[in-house]
């Protein structure tokens, strides 16, 4: 199996810092922002972003998780049922700016499902999307507002984001 | 006049003490001679003799099933005299005693005559009706036992139901004496565990099914033995299933009472674990018991406490079995699997093949007073079963000759099979 490192710890840190600044710039501050990560790694990235905001702006932002499993469009089509993760929306999201955070943006189907979950919880002012890696191959009309790195891949390749919290190391690899 | 020669087989006839290579000659439906094997006998086959080469096979007196339900009249959708007789022949049974719980009940001479007429017209094997003990099987008053005997009944029984009233059972044992009819008793206490559907024990507890304790049988066997002692009557315990009942019969015999007993192949083959999965083909009455009961039954077969192996062949339509376990009908078909299941006991060393023939033929003939059957003595009826002891085969319920398919042995690998069944010198079944 061929492995290609496309990001190391330093690169991930730099990318997240840049994303944080872009979010602040685009939203003219951090007021009314709620960060919702998609389990498992999206939640960790969301927490890291929140941490960066705290150092930049001095204020902690509400962080939660949004599990899109129950809203997936392939329920009953895969051999085994996908495992459920936690959904935890920490504050009411009506009129808030919700930023969905995930590790890899691929087909866009998970993001579609996550948006449906969020909308069932309330009516945010807007929903934005931040991802560490955009690997292309969209199957739905979805694009990220904030991208750590664009990584063109073939369909056969797998993009794996490893994080200290879950994998003991910060890196992004492409496997064939 | 038919003439039959069965050549070169191992002849086993416990009644005449024969076990060896013999040629059996039957003329006009009777055994004409049993002579030491003579390879050259009839090497030029004469026209008027049928010659069967039985080399490598076992020739024994035809099996006699003391306990069959032929279901006719009344329940022809389950079995008829004809289909039941075909199943019997396929299982090596040349005679069957059919129970009285038909509709109408065989509690009067006209029903007996109807069954015998059917048997004569369509029956392949000998059919001996068992008359009812009580009128309508109601357990209230005696049936016309004398007339039943005259019409051809060879025993009386309310099988399927116990005789609840001790008073009536006493009368039956007394009244049957001059007619020399055995009283076959279906032993279960009527008031204990009324709604039980399987053996009471860990399995019934786990499955949440109502249990039937051994005591339900033991109580009634004890009562009937006491009544046999009181009356000097002729008591036969049907389908014995418990350790306690075996011991009670053993004691009764030791005390010189005229008490005999039979066991079914399923009661010495299967335990209540066969019910797991709510298998309605493992539902019967008495229920399948435990290993400890099976061990006691095997000892009882060994020491002669249990005289006979009988099938309790109880055909049920699939509609009566493909239902919830507690609603399912009791019983299984047994004629076509009795021999191979019994042969497992021979393989286990529980008894010799000769003893098995006693349990399947010699003894049932004696118990039912069928003097010309159950042996290959000269002059006896030429009812003969030829068995291949080494033939391996697999039970396929769909292939059974019986009209019904309710067997828990579907798919079982068996060893030993009936090759030919001969009734009155005529081959009625060939594998």
């Amino acid at each position, binding site marked *: 199996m061929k492995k290609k490192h496309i990001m190391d710890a330093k690169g991930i840190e730099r990318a997240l810092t840049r994303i944080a600044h872009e979010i602040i710039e685009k939203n003219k501050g951090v007021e009314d922002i709620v960060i919702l990560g998609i389990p498992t790694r999206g939640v960790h990235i969301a927490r890291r972003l929140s941490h960066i905001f705290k150092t930049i702006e001095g204020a902690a932002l509400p962080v939660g998780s949004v599990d899109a499993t129950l809203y*997936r469009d392939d329920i009953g089509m895969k051999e085994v049922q996908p495992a459920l993760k936690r959904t935890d929306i920490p504050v009411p999201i009506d009129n808030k700016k919700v930023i969905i955070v995930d590790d890899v943006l691929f087909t866009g189907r998970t993001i579609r499902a996550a948006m449906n979950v969020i909308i069932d919880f309330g009516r945010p002012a807007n929903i934005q999307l931040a991802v560490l890696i955009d690997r292309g191959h969209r199957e739905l009309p979805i694009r990220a507002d904030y991208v750590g790195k664009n990584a063109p891949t073939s369909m056969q390749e797998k993009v794996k984001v490893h994080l200290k919290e879950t994998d003991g190391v910060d890196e992004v690899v492409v496997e064939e | 006049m038919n003439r039959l020669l069965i050549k070169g087989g191992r002849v086993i006839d416990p009644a005449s003490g024969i076990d060896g290579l013999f040629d059996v000659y039957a003329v006009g439906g009777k055994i004409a001679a049993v002579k030491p094997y003579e390879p050259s006998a009839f090497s030029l086959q004469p026209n008027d003799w049928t010659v069967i080469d039985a080399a490598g096979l076992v020739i024994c007196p035809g099996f006699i099933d003391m306990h069959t339900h032929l279901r006719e009249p009344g329940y022809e959708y389950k079995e008829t005299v004809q289909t039941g007789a075909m199943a019997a022949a396929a299982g090596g049974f040349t005679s069957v005693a059919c129970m009285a719980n038909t509709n109408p009940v065989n509690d009067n001479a006209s029903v007996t005559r109807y069954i015998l007429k059917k048997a004569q017209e369509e029956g392949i094997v000998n059919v001996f009706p068992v008359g009812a003990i009580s009128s309508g099987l109601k357990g209230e008053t005696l049936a016309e036992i004398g007339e039943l005997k005259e019409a051809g009944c060879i025993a009386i029984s309310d099988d399927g139901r116990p005789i609840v009233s001790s008073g009536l059972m006493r009368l039956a044992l007394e009244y049957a004496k001059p007619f020399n009819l055995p009283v076959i008793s279906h032993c279960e206490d009527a008031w204990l565990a009324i709604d039980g559907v399987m053996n009471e024990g860990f399995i019934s507890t786990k499955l949440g099914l109502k249990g039937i304790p051994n005591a339900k049988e033991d109580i009634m066997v004890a009562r009937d033995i006491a009544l046999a002692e009181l009356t000097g009557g002729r008591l036969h315990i049907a389908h014995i299933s418990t350790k306690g009942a075996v011991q009670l019969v053993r004691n009764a015999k030791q005390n010189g009472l005229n008490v005999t007993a039979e066991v079914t192949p399923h009661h010495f083959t299967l335990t209540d674990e066969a019910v797991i999965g709510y298998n309605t083909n493992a539902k019967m009455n008495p229920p399948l018991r435990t290993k400890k009961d099976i061990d006691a039954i095997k000892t009882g077969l060994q020491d002669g406490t249990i005289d006979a192996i009988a099938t309790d062949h109880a055909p049920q339509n699939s509609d009566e079995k493909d239902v*919830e376990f507690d609603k399912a009908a009791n019983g299984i078909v047994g004629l076509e699997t009795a021999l191979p299941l019994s042969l497992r006991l021979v393989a286990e060393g529980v008894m010799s093949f000769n003893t098995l023939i006693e349990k399947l033929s010699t003894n049932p003939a004696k118990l039912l007073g069928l003097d010309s059957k159950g042996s290959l003595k000269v002059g006896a009826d030429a009812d003969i079963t030829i068995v291949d002891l080494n033939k391996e085969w697999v039970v396929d319920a769909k292939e059974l000759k019986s009209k019904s398919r309710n067997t828990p042995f579907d798919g079982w690998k068996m060893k030993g099979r009936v090759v030919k069944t001969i009734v009155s010198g005529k081959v009625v079944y060939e594998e």
Partner: protein
Amino acid sequence: MRLKRKDILAIEELTKDEIELILSTAESFKEVSEREIKKVPTLRGRTIINLFYEPSTRTRTSFEIAAKRMSADAINISTSSSSVVKGETLKDTARNLEAMNPDCIVLRHPSSGAPEMLARLVRCSVINAGDGSHEHPSQALLDLLTVKERFGRIAGLKIAIAGDIAHSRVARSNIHGFAKLGAEVSIAGPPTMMPSEIEKMGCKMFYKVEDAIRDAHVIMVLRIQLERQKTGLFPTAREYSKLFALDSKKLEHAAKDVVILHPGPINRGIEISSDVADGKYSLILEQVKNGVAVRMALFYLLMGGSRE
């Protein structure tokens, strides 16, 4: 860990891992029930038939709510309201329902083993919602979830089950479930209500409630069916309640943080005194809440995969 079963028929056949998967999945579904919009689209287009041959409000409603919160179409068929079922054999009913192409049938039936029979007859999933005196798996799962939430664990807890064990499917399912997850299970009741060789199922048997509940963390009180008195299993309701009902005096033998479960509906003053039923120990309402979550989890785990 995934559930690869077609049916949920009995706790006895589930492994410890499978039970834990169901419980953790149910925990996720509790959150769904607390949302403003208590509905997820997961089982959209799926058909679930609640086939009830016995009257039941609690269990049927719970399954129905669970199905609806998953966006499945839930259809209720009960013997009292349906001519389809009257006089028709279970086999024929199964064939008819199969023709309607459901994804899951939830069956409550007075005959032990009926769900197993149905499962053999239909291609869709079957959930046993209580069969005769056999099992009531979803009830045991919700009891396990309730106890796990309260104590943070099951292993090592002492569980006492009191009442008519012989006729109780709830007792059987719970004995299997709690024993599999490492709890110590005791049962108590009059000997006439103890089935044969019950201890082989992995529990200790007592005739005195006080002995069974000694140091117990959880006491499960079974409903006494008063019609059983006619069969003579106990002399009078008065004597039963005096000797076997859980009251505050007997409760002194239990652990300080004891909780009480009851599968409902309660016969106040017969198997449990009112002060105990309404007291601080009772988790009865929590059980009801967890019932919906557990049943959502079962639906999800049975229908969330393709099985092909």
